């Protein structure tokens, strides 16, 4: 037979294996906080949970956010110059044809607790290990997520303030970024002079939960113990510890 067959040859395995090995290596680097990644979302609603947020130099104001549905939502824009998070559990829901509803879960750091029922249980993580603090009340121990210039716009944020100092409520919104030493990312809603704004020097919040539309990292984020999962069904915060363990 003198026919020429055209198709994918077996040598495809060479770049495939190389590429996947590089991807796994990068995943491991991200997971061991050696490599920082860029993570930006704007219009998808996320549920965001963390055992403990420790922020230094934060500023916030009220703004509107356009969702991909074309709907305008009132949100609080919060910018933190440097933040440390004890555990991260982000959940987004999506309806996929044929499969039905799936949940995308991004887990990093120590496991997040299944619920933050009251303020007293916010000093332990989802695996039951106590979070450790130094004499100044700052988080110690490894495996925490560190981010610089973290911007979150959320419809609701709740938690238990543990240690908050240097708070100024009602500052003119156009001056809060300068006070905190941050710059609002271009393209998002910018504050108007005279609007309500706030600044905080130290912001430590236990049991953080929020409905957020956007996470924007102008700086880099480290994500130790990173896990990305797509699981069928509608997952909630209660699934965070089990998904982080499995």
């Amino acid at each position, binding site marked *: *037979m*003198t*026919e*020429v*067959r*055209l*198709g*994918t*040859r*077996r*040598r*495809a*395995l*060479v*770049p*495939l294996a*190389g*590429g*996947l090995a*590089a*991807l796994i290596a*990068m*995943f491991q680097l*991200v997971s061991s906080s050696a*490599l920082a*990644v*860029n*993570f*930006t*979302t*704007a*219009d998808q609603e996320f549920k965001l949970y963390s055992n403990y947020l420790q922020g230094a130099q934060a500023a916030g104001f009220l703004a509107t956010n*356009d969702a*991909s549905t074309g709907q305008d939502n009132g949100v609080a824009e919060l910018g933190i110059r440097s933040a440390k998070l004890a555990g991260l559990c982000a959940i987004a829901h999506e309806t996929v044809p044929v499969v039905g509803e799936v949940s*995308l879960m*991004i887990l990093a750091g120590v496991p997040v607790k299944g619920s933050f029922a009251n303020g007293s249980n916010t000093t332990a993580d989802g695996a039951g290990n106590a979070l450790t603090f130094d004499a100044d009340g700052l988080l110690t121990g490894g495996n925490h997520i560190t981010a610089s210039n973290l911007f979150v716009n959320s419809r609701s944020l709740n938690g238990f303030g543990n240690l908050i100092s240097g708070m100024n409520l009602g500052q003119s919104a156009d001056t809060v970024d300068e006070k905190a030493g941050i710059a609002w*990312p*271009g*393209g*998002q809603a910018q504050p108007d002079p005279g609007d309500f704004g706030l600044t905080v020097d130290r912001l430590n919040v236990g049991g953080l939960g929020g409905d957020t539309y956007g996470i*924007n*990292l*102008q700086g880099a984020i480290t994500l130790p113990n990173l896990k*990305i999962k*797509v699981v069928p069904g509608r997952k909630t915060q209660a699934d965070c510890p089990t998904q982080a363990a499995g």
Partner: protein
Amino acid sequence: MTAQVRRRTRAARTAFRSFRRTRPFWGGLWCILAGALIVRSMFFSFLLAVSGGWSYSAGYILGGGLVLFGLVAWFAPHYRGLVGLLAVGLALAAFVAANLGGYLVGSVLGILGGSMVWAWGEKAPRRRVAGRRRAVPVS
């Protein structure tokens, strides 16, 4: 009437088959899908992408590049060796720069598609297997 419809669909299927078999079709398709997934994971308004800097535009640049390379693989298969490897590189870059490469799926698809585009070509002739119609005679 039905005979005509059947003839038309058969002609379309034959045309599609010859389209598929003369270019790195599947590799290009995975590249396009990977690019679409990466763009979808960072789908901002055009204004935001232009004014917001790299953290807003990375999805369009890297995902759009993958879509472009997939289309090049389809319509200019001559360049498959180059665009295949570039697509693998873009898929890897997207993992760092574009929401973990469209939540990982886009990067994996891009690596697979790029490898398949790169490796597409003349296969070694195979002894004929009875009853199979895998081979297409060219010219």
